[in-house]
């Protein structure tokens, strides 16, 4: 099983989505982690990932960032 990380902190939309999609298209299946630092980025990345068939398996949120664990 492959695991990869996208660090999209400090980037504004649509960049977190585009970085995530780029990895999603390379990886096809498995697990990946996306780190974002805004609620809007979190929602947009999740919508884009779900439209590609990926699901959120876990989310870890702190005051400054959110780690989204995606799986397919």
């Amino acid at each position, binding site marked *: 099983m492959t695991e990869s990380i996208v660090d999209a902190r400090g980037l504004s*939309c*649509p*960049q977190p*989505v*585009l970085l995530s*999609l*780029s990895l999603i298209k390379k990886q096809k299946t498995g697990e990946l982690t996306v780190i974002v630092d805004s609620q*809007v980025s979190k*929602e*947009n990345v999740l*919508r*884009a990932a*779900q*439209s*590609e068939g990926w699901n959120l398996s876990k989310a870890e949120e702190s005051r400054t960032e959110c780690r989204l664990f995606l799986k397919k």
Partner: protein
Amino acid sequence: MPPIFKKIVFFIKKTLGIKDPEDNPQKPMSGLSSRGIIIFEHTSDVIRSETLLKAAGLDVRVKGPPPEIRTGCDLVIEFPLILELEIREILGRNRIKLMKIAPMQDHLLEPVSLFQVKDFGDYLMVRAANMKITVEKSTRWIVNVSGGGCPDVPYLSEQLIGKNLLETSEPRAMGHTLCGYALQLAYEEMKRQWPS
């Protein structure tokens, strides 16, 4: 008005070429034209009316209201006065309430374009006012919709993401706010920009 809405109104006004009176205080009032404006209370009524009137083949355009008009929402519909009865009939039939119909002063400003197009390689983004839409070039799929601050933006994103740009419903059919209208502008510009 909350600051986020002030910002949205500012961008929409810029997009549509609306200026406040203090922007051009010396400009004299000129004569009346053969066109009129319809003033609505709600932006959603402007969007619905534009859709209905254009579908009926009428020559109407959404614009910013003249500075002296202080009632209604931040958008008006401009139309040839000769069509007033027909327009009233269409809007009445669809139960759309209009606040006022007035002859248009010909000093009204024309809309200007305020689009930002950004190429991200495999993706193309168009920004109109406060809204952005991003499409994957190879599939024409909408991959991101962002911006706004209006309550219908999450719904619009949900409806559009993962859909083909050329096959999905237009944002104007789903949105009811200034953000929805800005997204419609971005959507139309994206379709214009699309390489054939």
